[in-house]
């Protein structure tokens, strides 16, 4: 496979009891780009994400990361290769504090996750990185709150911060703006653009303005298949895409 591709799917399918949530999808995530997947509810976007990150196993098809076949790897193994995702339903460690959420993410890259006797607070490098992330994401004032008690928007920001703590090379964000207020959306958009430097990002997003702002290329999914692919302006102008997206089209 072409090593210029960050992630690549070859005729990827996933079936749930006879129903194909993703059917025979060929998809390429180009290295260094920001790409978006759009499509109506239930189109299979999250399932595609789950497949690409090996959260679930494909029924058939292959997945490549930087040219290597990673179809048989586990989600942690892929994460170790630098492919990290966020979840559509915000995923934070609810009983840990905001700071602990970040520390937890930082432990493995720092090689301390298997330390059974040390103290988390004793790791200088981790503490400094956590401080930097808290500041950058403006989470400083709630650093000691339990993540489960944060507002929805804060949880999303924390999740993004936790994901970025790993310095991933490939970042998959499932609806990062869902549930955010207008102000937050602007901020998070800037953040994503900022961290996009030198990284590859794939995002699922329903907010078209965000998609237009951020994405170099978009992919439209409908009913488990890819309907169209290309630059935003070109794709969004296509009649079949508009029809599919507004739910008026029948094919």
């Amino acid at each position, binding site marked *: 496979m072409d090593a210029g591709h960050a992630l690549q799917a070859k005729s990827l399918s996933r079936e749930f009891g006879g129903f194909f949530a993703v059917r025979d999808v060929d998809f390429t995530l180009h290295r260094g780009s920001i790409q978006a997947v759009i499509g109506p509810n239930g189109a299979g976007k999250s399932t595609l994400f789950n497949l690409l990150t090996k*959260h679930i196993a494909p029924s058939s098809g292959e997945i490549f990361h930087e040219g290597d076949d990673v179809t048989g790897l586990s989600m*942690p193994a892929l994460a170790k290769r630098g492919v*990290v995702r966020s*979840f559509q339903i915000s995923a934070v460690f609810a009983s840990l504090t905001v700071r602990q959420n970040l520390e*937890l993410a930082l432990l493995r890259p720092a090689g301390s996750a*298997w330390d*059974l006797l040390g*103290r*988390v607070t004793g790791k200088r490098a981790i503490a400094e990185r956590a401080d930097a992330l808290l500041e950058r994401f403006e989470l400083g004032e709630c650093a000691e709150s339990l993540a489960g008690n944060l507002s929805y928007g804060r949880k999303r920001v924390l999740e993004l911060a936790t994901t970025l703590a790993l310095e991933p090379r490939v970042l998959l964000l499932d609806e990062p703006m869902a549930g955010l207020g207008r102000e937050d959306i602007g901020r998070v958009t800037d953040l994503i653009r900022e961290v996009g430097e030198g990284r590859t990002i794939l995002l699922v997003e329903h907010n078209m303005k965000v998609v237009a702002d951020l994405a170099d290329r978009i992919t439209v999914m409908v009913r488990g298949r890819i309907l169209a692919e290309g630059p935003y302006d070109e794709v969004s102008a296509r009649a079949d895409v508009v029809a599919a997206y507004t739910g008026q089209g029948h094919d």
Partner: protein
Amino acid sequence: MTMILGVPAAVLFGQLLLGLINGAFYAMLSLGLAVIFGMMNIVNFAHGAQYMLGAMTAWLLLTYLGIGYWWALLLVPLMVGASGLLLERFVLRRLYRLDHLYGMLLTFGLALVLQGLLTNAFGSSGQPYSIPAELMGGRNLGFMFLPNYRAWVIAASLLVCLTTWYVIERTRLGAYLRAATENPMLVQAFGIRVPRMIMLTYGAGVGLAALAGVLAAPVYQVGPTMGADLIIVVFAVVVIGGMGSIMGSIVTGFLVGLIEGLTKAFYPELSSTVVFVVMAVVLMVRPAGLFGSKPEQAQNHRQVLDGASTSPRTQTIQFLVMAALFAAAPLVVYPGFMMKAMLFALFACAFNLIAGYGKLVSFGHAMFLGTAGYVSGHAAKSWGLTPELAVLAGTAAAALLGLASGWLAIRRSGIYFAMVTLAFAQMIYFVALQAPFTGGEDGLQAIPRGHLFGLIDLSRPANLYGFVLAIFLGGFYLIMRVVGSPFGLVLRGISDHETRAQSLGLETERFKLVAFTLSAALSGLAGATKAITSQIATLVDVHWSMSGEVLLMTFLGGVGTLFGPVVGAFVVVAMQNYLAALGQWVIVLHGTIFVLCVLIFRRGIVGEASLLLRRWSARPAAAAHPAAALTPHRQPAGH
């Protein structure tokens, strides 16, 4: 006489028939469990007790009112089923928003209460119940003799099972039931009263257990404990079959019965453990069970932990205070009590490591306590090892057992994990019962205390106390450090949201396995030391009721808190010591405490106390913690 593979044909067929009978009961009970679980997400631990209640009620009706078998067959399921309705309406209904485990804990408590009450009233020995006149005798089939009653049991249970299957899978009523399981709100919107439907389902499930009890009365001895061991085998059946399908539980029930029968004919020594061996194999090759379609979804928990709020310094100070108190305790408290309580406290703390911080609630931790006790006792007695080496040997044995059982058990989570560990522990119990070096029913007696490092004489009370104190404090300190370590943070993260932890590149299964093994080893440390201290190792320490006790100690004291298990252990041991005269009432008390802990006291003593303390303290904002210890999971019922 015809022989088949070296076994007389009559014996083989006889055992197969017996297996089929047992299988009929497994099928009926696991069917009821599956129906109740499917509808309410509650693992009805009381199912065995309700089966027993069915048999006991039939016996009572006959003995005191002269009401015979056929009427009992009709009346008893209705009576016991009605008690199920009340139970659902007034107790279980409060649990639907909580983690599934609370349902299992509560019904476990209820089972203890029922068993204890009936033992008090009628003694623990079994009572005979005669076969109704119509079904006396039997017929000769040529290759074997078939008693009529046994033929009837098989036919009746098949009829019951298939009727249930038909109602649920093929009728309109069943369609509503299944729809209500999927989407209670929607069904409610169609004008069906979901809560009432759930109540009736539970009542029907309980009635089914009682019916099985009546059918069983003439076959087995009728007694208060007849359901307890059975339910554990039924759990293994459920794990083997997977809780997914009704037909699956029926087929698996009969299958397991037949396998047991075959084993009894060809290799009787293995007959009581074969179910658990089959379970282990199934877990290895098909973790979701033979008929289970999907592995259960990971639940996301939310729990406020004590360790999160106290700084390492405060913890160290608390630890030192405890050490000083315990060192001085023999001046005022009977040292024997202190040693016993400290060892149970260590056991409970070890259990809490995996149950509280890893959120993997094991129902079989007694296997580690007991195995280590036997091994260290044997090492000290037969090999003549010094106490520290004997304790080490016991601890190592428990760690190995933890590694092996954990490797299989962590393939499942939540209630399945609880059932798998319980089943493995039962297997160890049977091994301990039969193995040559455990002394069977008598256990190991007169284990020498010996000289520590060959120097310090442990038969001197002060030395012995110091030895136990050092082991307790050492074990506790280790657990405290692990909980506060990066590893501990990872463990808590995994119990919060396993998938998220995986997406961060953490191989969660390995962390869980190491934590489980560590917990097993520390439980073993307690058990091994206990054997040396008390100089005996018996079946009590491997019995499931011991696994229940450690659960009780931990939940009573405060699961997921550092000092909770210590407090819980002291309370429970004190209860046993000072209330020993109450006999079986202690079991009723245990059961009642379980029920209360689940219903109103979910944080336990230490958890509730530290919450009060926090509320009291100046910062009001800090008290905004989530109300329940575990998050709402799913809500089958409307309001």
